[in-house]
């Protein structure tokens, strides 16, 4: 892999609550190369959204990024920047698209205003220039009659149009990295495909990197070149998309794949992973997945699994890499897709 655009090293973001310290992100490492689309997959509660917010340093109290974490972007550690330098990166070099475009847009300003605001902050553009750029951008993301739409308020647009507005806002300054946090979850299935296609198209056009956060492996399969599977606040498996789908290593990844609905598959064959995600205030010792894993043995309780290389560009946090014979039959951990 070439020099990465973004390299997260041992990111830990903790929330200090009355119920204890919630270690939402706890030792995450991942890298994004220039022009690459990386999918981050996991169930809700795995820390993927908090990771995204941590990159932009938008975690609010009682959340805190722990010292020792590093987020290298274009060669600089974002966590070492002062607030002013960080603001110059937000919206300009790294932009973000959120899940729920209705609530992520300010209800009392026109969408044109909100898109233009980005140019006004970062390019010091005059009101008129920024507005013109905003309208051009709205046009670029496929909003019909952008001149009129720009003068409307978020509640007047459909969900798909709102998400296009969010994308326009994110791309105003042609950022090097776009973080998309579940960008299609709130949308209808047909609109989802359109938005994903738009993102892919814009990525090629601008040559930017995309960090796509989703719980939906199907979305990853369509858009990403590499996948990071998160569980318990850390990455448990990373691999190129094809390798991950063909030969998943971590039992959790296998479970996710087995739970994925597929065309032509009968409903009752769909499997779920037994148990629930443990609370971030109390990750189990050793492997965080062991309580739900049918292959777990004593070592999984005793030793937190390190990152094991599986193949070039493919790594897994599972002791099975060391002792493959301990893996259960395909029926147990739900590895329908397993034939490795």
């Amino acid at each position, binding site marked *: 892999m070439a020099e990465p655009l973004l390299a997260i090293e041992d990111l830990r973001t903790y929330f200090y609550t009355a119920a204890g310290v919630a270690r939402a992100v706890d030792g995450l490492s991942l890298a994004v190369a220039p022009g690459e689309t990386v999918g981050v997959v996991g169930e809700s509660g795995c820390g993927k959204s908090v990771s995204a*917010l941590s990159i932009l340093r938008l975690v609010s*109290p009682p959340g805190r990024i722990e010292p020792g974490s590093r987020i290298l972007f274009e060669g600089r550690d974002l966590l070492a920047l002062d607030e002013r330098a960080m603001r110059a990166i*937000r919206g*300009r070099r790294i932009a973000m698209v959120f899940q729920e475009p209705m609530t992520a847009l300010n*209800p*009392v300003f026109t969408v044109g205003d909100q898109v233009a605001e980005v140019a006004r902050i970062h390019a010091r553009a005059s009101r008129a220039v920024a507005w013109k750029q905003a309208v051009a951008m709205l046009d670029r993301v496929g909003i019909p009659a952008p001149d009129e739409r720009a003068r409307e*308020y978020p509640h007047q647009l459909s969900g798909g149009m709102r998400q296009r507005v969010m994308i326009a806002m994110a791309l105003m300054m042609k950022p090097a990295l776009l973080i998309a946090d579940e960008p299609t979850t709130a949308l209808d299935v047909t609109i989802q495909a359109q938005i994903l296609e738009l993102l892919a198209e814009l990525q090629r056009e601008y040559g930017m990197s995309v960090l796509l956060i989703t719980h939906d492996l199907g979305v990853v399969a369509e858009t990403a070149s590499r996948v990071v599977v998160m569980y318990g606040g850390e990455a448990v498996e990373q691999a190129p998309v094809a390798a991950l789908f063909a030969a998943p290593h971590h039992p959790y990844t296998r479970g996710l794949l087995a739970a994925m609905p597929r065309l032509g598959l009968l409903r009752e064959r769909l499997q779920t992973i037994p148990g629930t995600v443990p609370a971030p205030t109390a990750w189990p010792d050793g492997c965080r997945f062991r309580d739900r894993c049918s292959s777990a043995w004593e070592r999984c309780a005793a030793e937190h699994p390190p990152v094991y290389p599986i193949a070039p560009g493919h790594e897994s946090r599972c002791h099975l890499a060391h002792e493959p014979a301990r893996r259960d039959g395909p029926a147990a951990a739900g590895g329908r897709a397993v034939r490795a």
Partner: protein
Amino acid sequence: MGRRIGARIVQAVVVLWVVATLAFILIHAAPGDPFGYDAPSVTPAVRAHWRHLYGYDRPLGTQYVLWLRNLARGDLGYSVSMHEPVRDALANALPRTLYLMGVAVVASFALGIGLALFQVRRLGTRRARWAGAVALFFYSLPDFWLALVLLLAFAYWWPILPAGYPVDMVMHGYMAPWPAFVDRLRHLVLPALTLTLLTTAAVARFQRQELLDVLPLDFVRTARAKGLDERAVIRRHVLRNALIPTITLFGLALPALLGGAVFVEKIYAWQGMGWLAISAIGMRDYPLVLAAVLVGTAMVVLGNLVADLAYVAADPRLRVG
């Protein structure tokens, strides 16, 4: 939107009608009548004559209809204590009350919103907590108590301001325009300050909560993700949303403000509506007291109507689509 305004106007009229009816019932249920005062010259015959003169001997139904008709015409009866029609007495007093309340409303909303912004910007700091404590302190003060303390402080112990009346009762008529203007201002300071301090505290407490309610919303995070600095995030994105409920507060605060004005006017001898109503109590001048209630209610109803329209204008979700 037109329907909404129409419905609100109908509602306003109904409220006024209910209060007018209530006032009518109060007058007639109360012990004695306006002609009850004791004087050797007021013989039963004289009382009967007065009763007839003012229609008190007619059937209640007729009196009620007459009462409503007169109210609709702006005829609020005759004030025994002021020796003039209630309408004329109020016509002199009402502008003074509106003037005092207007100054207090503008000042207290500006200060209260500013104080709330200060607290929210420095959330969790010692200074923000102090600001909150000061707001709570003023919020807890009785209106008459604060009025008297300020009067004592700035008109007696450290006499830099006049103790009462809207203008200097003796000299004002002889003053040149500029000194007359200064005279007006000097008399305004203490009563306006009292009302402002009390209302500011209430506005600040309300506005702080509204700001805190908006702060965790998604679009605030979007604004930060754009690269806006925290000041601009709060001033532009948070405040603009948090101000919308404050418009309703204007309508809701009016009754309390009127109540405060009653005490402030009494203590500073500010001859507005509240002062008039209090003076009327002592003289058992019931028509004047009830007229003050009616006019006060009308002010609140009108204020609420204005607030409601402003609310619709301020919130795009109601304004369009």
